[in-house]
């Protein structure tokens, strides 16, 4: 690979948030999976390496606190920092995302010659973000009900705890599906990222990569807004 110009794509704060999310969610999945599949050999093995049944629960709760802190951090970030508000606006779904999706499928099946031009976040990444946004809210809320059941017993009916448990377990399965299938595809197994897109760690991507995957963001970085208009933004 020829030496390329590097572009900073993710700020330090953005990377810290991702790191916290990655660590907490991984721990939560490992400890939660152990409980959900307690009657399989893998579940028993996980419970064993997590130091027994009760330690497993404690680990799960510690990780949950970490996830909660991450979520609060992220909320503060997108509400109260200039950078966060800008990132959040970039992540909001737009009409273009639906068009991009159709274009991208057409490109895949050979109907289009050129791939759609993505902005800072493609519809694929937006799906990832919003799925997780929803998951984290669901998991935190149902998790709080389950964790503090002793306090909530006097307030909530019994069926609400069953409901929370069902929701917690079902959403967890969906989270794993998304992570394993979609997130790992996006950042590891998609041809332009294989074997790993390390920008989550150092924040940098090559100009070449940016041009290929987020053309509009690339233009934004390299040219003035005037030029972008001429090159057909918002086609």
């Amino acid at each position, binding site marked *: 690979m020829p030496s390329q110009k590097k572009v900073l794509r993710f700020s330090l704060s953005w990377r810290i948030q991702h790191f916290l999310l990655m660590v907490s969610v991984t721990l939560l999945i490992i400890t939660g999976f152990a409980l959900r599949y307690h009657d399989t050999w893998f579940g028993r093995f996980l419970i064993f390496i997590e130091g*027994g049944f009760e330690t497993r629960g404690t680990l799960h709760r510690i990780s949950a606190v970490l996830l909660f802190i991450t979520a609060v951090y992220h909320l503060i970030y997108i509400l109260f920092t200039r950078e966060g508000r800008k990132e959040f606006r970039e992540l909001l779904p737009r009409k273009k995302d639906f068009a991009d999706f159709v274009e991208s499928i057409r490109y895949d099946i050979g109907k289009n010659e050129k791939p759609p031009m993505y902005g800072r976040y493609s519809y694929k990444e937006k799906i990832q973000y919003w799925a997780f946004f929803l998951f984290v809210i669901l998991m935190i809320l149902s998790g709080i009900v389950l964790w503090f059941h002793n306090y909530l017993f006097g307030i909530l009916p019994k069926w609400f705890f069953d409901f929370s448990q069902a929701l917690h377990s079902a959403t967890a399965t969906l989270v794993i*599906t998304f992570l394993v299938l979609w997130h790992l595809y996006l950042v590891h197994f998609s041809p332009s990222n294989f074997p790993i897109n390390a920008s989550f760690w150092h924040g940098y991507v090559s100009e070449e990569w940016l041009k290929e995957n987020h053309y509009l963001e690339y233009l934004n970085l390299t040219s003035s807004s005037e030029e972008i208009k001429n090159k057909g933004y918002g086609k």
Partner: protein
Amino acid sequence: MRRFLYFAIFLFAVSQTSAQLRNERCFVCHGVKNFGIVEHGKFKSLYVSKEDFEASVHSKFACVSCHVDVRVIPHLTKPQRIHCLQCHFEGNVVGAPVTAKPEKYKESVHAKALAKGKNAPDCKDCHTVHYVRKPEDPNSSVYKTRIPELCGRCHETVKEEYYNSIHWAGIQKGELSSAVCSDCHREHDILPPEDPRSSLNPKNVVGTCDKCHSDVKLMKRVGVPVQNPEAYKESFHGIALKFGVVRAANCASCHEYHSVLPSRDPRSPIHPANLAKTCGKCHPRANENVAKGKFHVLPGERESGIVYYVYTFFKWFTLIVLIGLFTHIVLDLIGHIRRKRKKE
């Protein structure tokens, strides 16, 4: 007098010729209802019912086959105390059946108490001395329907509790599969709940109840939901218990043990009106809210209500998401490969 003596000698001679007749000889005295002696100032009956003895599993044996120290009849001295293991030992020549039961008994609370000199039953206290019958014989002292009475001779308060239970009601209705003492406590190897081998140890309670309560045919017959043990094992309580957290609730924690009653019975700890108190044993803030919902829910069953709908919705939703994402990925990769080939 002389004539009587001759008769007596004749009777003696005849009686010695066969076991049956020898027994006849014993029953001359022991067959008289109020036959007995005064021992330590108390009347002690020495009566043996001939009819009942002859209906017992030992009817073919002579009295003296067990009472070996009786050599002349009438005997003048008190015969030695006899023990079942006189015959029921490995390699005996009289064909007495040998089982592991005496060995199991030796481990039991009863045998241990007896060894310490306490008042506790051994074989004869349950099986009787002279009228041992097969357990399946309705007249046996250990026939299923008689067991609560038998154990209740010593365990009086427990007997009264048990007589209030649905299990006893079942027995009285003729449902002989219903549980009596021995179904949960076992017969011979009765161990204290602290013993990890005990059927009553918190870790084993679920298995003990499960023996009957996961029997599909039986539970259908008596109208008890058969999925309850399964649902329990999938619950937090069940999983925690399985992994050794014995303070987690097992069946008996909520259902009681001797006085098990269905939830429709107002005396039952699982009657909706009593649930707050029952759950409150471990969850101090429990109030009437704990009665608002279903118990022993399995996500796959429609009766589980909201849990079923959440489970079913997510099952299909996850599947659709899985297929959708997977298809997208495959299309991407196919497109990538085709474009690469075109380039070359």
